[in-house]
């Protein structure tokens, strides 16, 4: 049980910067977009609606690298605290 919780936690932290694009696109409207706009939907908007491919790719790549860092940090932390890790 502790193993699985540690594993699921590491995976969940890796997804911290990835929000649910499907959910956002369905529930977002012009009135709540100030609070509803997440990185995924912003990349989507800049990329396909405004056609600024380079900028959207740069944002996506930056977020991916930070996510990788988050996974590695959590992995190291759980290894130290719990002696359990994904890799």
């Amino acid at each position, binding site marked *: 049980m502790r193993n*699985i919780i540690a594993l699921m936690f590491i995976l969940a932290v890796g997804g911290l910067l990835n929000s649910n694009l*499907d959910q956002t696109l369905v529930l977002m409207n012009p009135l*709540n977009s100030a*609070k509803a706009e997440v990185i995924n939907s912003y990349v989507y908007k800049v990329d396909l609606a405004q056609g600024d491919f*380079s900028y959207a*790719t*740069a944002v996506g790549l930056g977020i991916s690298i930070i996510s990788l860092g988050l996974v590695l940090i959590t992995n190291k932390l759980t290894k130290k605290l719990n002696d359990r890790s994904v890799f």
Partner: protein
Amino acid sequence: MKKSDFFKKLKRQLPLQLMVLPGIIFMIVFSYLPIYGLSIAFKSFSVTDTISSASWVGLENFRIALDDKFFWNAVVNTLGISFLKLAIGFTTPIILAILIYELRDGWFKRVIQTVSYLPHFLSWIVLGGMLVNWFSTSGLINTLLINLGLIDTAKNFLIEPDKYWLIAVLSDVWKEAGWGTIIYLATM
């Protein structure tokens, strides 16, 4: 390992290796080759360019992102929603799994498990349409609250920015919590 050993092993595992091959090809085509496309993050790319003909601009695009207030707004929203989802959406399946585990085997346990993971099989498109309908002024939630006497006038919850985070987090927990319990139930 000697080279002859390697080929002997490969020959012995040939059927298994062949079964792995489609997966490896899939990974190369859809995960490794697209890495090349990431180079447009460091270029000034427009629809008339090809990836290789676009001119390099270095870290210019990343610098623009740091000054972009819409980008930082998106970061704040992402982190806010994600941390709420982590706090509520990560603990709920564990608690639910323990509660279900403690139930006596029978129809009640089976019904609870089935009902709690059913929303997982609806896509967000379907579920989102249902939510938009429920939260509208003449929808389920408003009708319920008015008839219970909790609010006086109907209002559309989805057009209020302050309530969006809560709606996003709770609807996600509702959709995925039951599914998440399966993996914990399997370990108990």
